[in-house]
């Protein structure tokens, strides 16, 4: 699927700029693209390294396991295929919690670790497992309660009440997560 998206983004972008005679723009874009990607990597690299380090302490001390056991009753409903007491549950819960609080940068390393743990219990290594997809739906529907970047930007632009968008945001995010999870649930049921 990512295959198709990649294809269409590039083909549409290049052909459209041919048609509109924007060759300079597209040349610029292609040549400066690599720098942008490198900047992105450099900005997330320290965060990922820091958080995987911190999380390793939590793993080694058994804290992560404790946390996983704590959230297991809730997550069990969404992830019936994950074995009891698996570390993936701890990482999934940490990722969701970080997302909720708008700590997107901390959420990514937890998410990547969760995917790794899910891959360990995956039977077909090149194919997405059911818990992986449920996790990604939950993750991308973005259960954000405190959208930190948006709040900061609203404040910077002189909003009289920056946080007034929190409630509507929570409702919208709740609806999208619920819709995603329901669709995921029905597809899983049908596939069985």
């Amino acid at each position, binding site marked *: 699927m990512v295959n198709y998206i990649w294809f269409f983004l590039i083909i549409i972008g290049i052909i459209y700029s041919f048609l509109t005679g924007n060759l300079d723009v597209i040349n610029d874009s292609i040549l400066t*693209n690599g720098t942008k990607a490198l900047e992105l990597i450099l900005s997330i690299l320290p965060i990922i390294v820091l958080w995987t380090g911190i999380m390793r302490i939590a793993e080694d001390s058994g804290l992560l396991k404790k946390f996983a056991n704590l959230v297991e009753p809730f997550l069990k409903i969404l992830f019936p295929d994950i074995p009891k007491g698996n570390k993936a549950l701890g990482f999934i819960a940490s990722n969701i919690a970080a997302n909720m609080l708008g700590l997107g940068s901390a959420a990514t*390393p937890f998410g990547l670790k969760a995917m790794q743990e899910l891959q360990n219990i995956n039977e077909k290594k090149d194919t997405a497992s059911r818990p992986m997809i449920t996790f990604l739906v939950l993750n991308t529907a973005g259960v954000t309660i405190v959208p930190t970047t948006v709040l900061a930007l609203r404040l910077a632009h002189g909003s009289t009440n920056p946080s007034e968008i929190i409630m509507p945001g929570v409702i919208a995010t709740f609806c999208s997560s619920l819709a995603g999870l329901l669709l995921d649930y029905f597809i899983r049921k049908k596939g069985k």
Partner: protein
Amino acid sequence: MNILSKIVIPLFIIIVVFYGFKKKVNIYDSFLEGAKEGLIITFNIFPSIIAMVFAINIFLDSNFINAFLTFFQKIFHFINIPMEIMPMALLRPISGTASLAIMNDIFIKYGPDSYLGRLASVLQGCTDTTVYVLALYFSSIGIKKTRYALGVGLFADLVGITVAFLITSLLF
């Protein structure tokens, strides 16, 4: 709410470090082990980040989105959706930076407390960059067949964006 999100990270680190110390884990060595693993993870996602940034930027820079939207202008006008917000709604699933930049433009032009400003804020907060996250997470562990993941993810985004429109019109 803002204070809460500022306390969380330091508090979390204190708890982890303290608990590890109490359980007589060699916390420094553990950290180094984990950090090394973090480097490998970053190394593994590097190619997919380059690939995604490359494709997304070609697409954005070609300005196709604007031409595409002009084509549908009448329909959006008919169902009462302000045209200015549409590029943001369309780009939200593929690029967080692009949609953030559009939100910033809207704030400058109309102000954060205008209808458009609020709508943009709700939109930015209510979904994530689905396409990018899927590409990143799946490629980090070498998954090639993503099955129905993208379909469900984009469906959830569509519902979120629709609700954001409805609720902003209702509340403000």
